[in-house]
């Protein structure tokens, strides 16, 4: 019995070694025609659609995405993650990479513009109608608001909005719930777990959420700009540059504008 068990375990181990080797080999051949794109979570739907279009025109290329908060992605890149193209939801994260000479500055471009909005769940249970009203409710402690944490661009824009209204974030902490990227905030609003959430117009559109107010440039401390740049250490610089050019083009533009992005070019 014990011998049979030992044989089974050895067989499993051998199989997994062979499979691992095969996977590694497959990856190294795939790397020749792969572009790794790290992009802000708010671009999930649009970039996924664009991938389909691009790969149809360029069948020898595979676009691989990593969607998450720009802060998370920036940290991953700084720690050595393999990436060819980075698109951030704010200048802050791109600047941080530029300061560390991790990007090819000649490729850096302001690609898209978004708007920060106040979204509510179906039926708007608390009847919130504006950021002004939200500020009042927060001061009175009568609302639960979902926001991104301070590492997430939409969370950083939210902090600017709080500053605009003179709200002390520490004073209202028990009325906030912090999420680690904008999609998590969106899901919390969609599932009615919170009374409202501060997300991008594009996320609200893609999730079919009702937007009750949109933040102005003054409230967010400037326009919400998405910069893009090719990574200096990326293995597929030429293909990444080509994909970035495609993102600037008319077909990609149609997809972005269909959910509410504006072009910043």
């Amino acid at each position, binding site marked *: 019995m014990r011998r049979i068990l030992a044989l089974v375990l050895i067989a499993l181990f051998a199989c997994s070694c062979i499979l691992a080797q095969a996977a590694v080999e497959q990856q190294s051949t795939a790397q020749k025609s792969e572009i790794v794109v790290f992009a802000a979570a708010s671009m999930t739907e649009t970039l996924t659609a664009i991938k389909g279009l691009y790969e149809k025109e360029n069948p020898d290329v595979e676009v691989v995405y990593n969607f998450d908060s720009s802060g998370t992605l920036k940290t991953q890149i700084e720690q050595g993650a393999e990436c060819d193209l980075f698109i951030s939801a704010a200048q802050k994260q791109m600047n941080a990479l530029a300061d560390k000479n991790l990007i090819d500055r000649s490729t850096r471009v302001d690609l898209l513009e978004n708007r920060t909005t106040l979204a509510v769940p179906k039926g708007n249970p608390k009847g919130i109608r504006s950021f002004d009203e939200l500020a009042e409710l927060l001061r009175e402690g009568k609302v639960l608001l979902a926001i991104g944490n301070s590492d997430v661009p939409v969370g950083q824009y939210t902090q600017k909005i709080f500053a605009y209204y003179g709200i002390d974030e520490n004073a209202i*902490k*028990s009325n906030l719930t*912090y999420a680690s990227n904008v999609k998590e905030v969106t899901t919390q609003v969609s*599932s009615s777990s919170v009374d409202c959430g501060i997300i991008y117009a594009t996320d609200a559109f893609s999730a079919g959420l009702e937007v009750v107010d949109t933040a102005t440039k003054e409230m967010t401390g400037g326009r919400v700009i998405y910069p893009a740049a090719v990574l200096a250490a990326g293995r597929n610089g030429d293909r990444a540059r080509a994909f970035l050019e495609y993102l600037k083009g008319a077909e990609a533009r149609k997809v972005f504008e269909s959910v509410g992005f504006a072009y910043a070019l």
Partner: protein
Amino acid sequence: MDWYPLYNSLRIALFSSVIVFFAGIFSAYYVARLPRSAKGVVDVVLTLPLVLPPTVCGYFLLLAFGLNTPIGRFLDSYGFRFVMTWYGGILAASTVAFPLMYRTARGAFEAFDVTLSEAGQTLGLSNAYIFWHVRIPSCREGIVAGIVLSFARALGEYGATSMLIGYTPGRTATISTTVYQMWRTNNEREAFIWVMMNLVISMVVLLAVNLLEGRNRRRSAG
């Protein structure tokens, strides 16, 4: 330094342990009595949260108790909700810790010498009396180990908790969600403090388990 996460984690773990203690021993007792066909299926369902990723458990809990669901809406009409409150933390922790208590209790009950309860029956004692005063004390070490393990699991629960109750400082923050948020917002000092605190608590809990096992071995050896 905000100590709320410690208070919140401990109270969630304590409440969960109490719930799971009763749910676990009763399930273990009654499942053993099921007909063979039902026993296997029920056992698998009750053990499932042990092997499922906590995020999967969290997803199912949201599916059942989220505010868009019948149960969620019903509870909300009475002003009670699991989502975004520390009660949700108890629900999440109990769900993932339950299989630990259940399996340990079943193991202990199966090792129980049933002639002891039969002797009680010949003396005319009720089944409830036999359960609480003969069976449970006889399976004491296994059950206490189960309590300690489920307490530890409840204390360290992250995935389902995060999905169900989010992160509201001073209201729903636990040690595990706080560590994640502190790390994510580059607050290394606080993250490290909580990591160390959790480490100390976990080591104390495991020492307790070892002491109990040691005493058990010495008793049965003697």
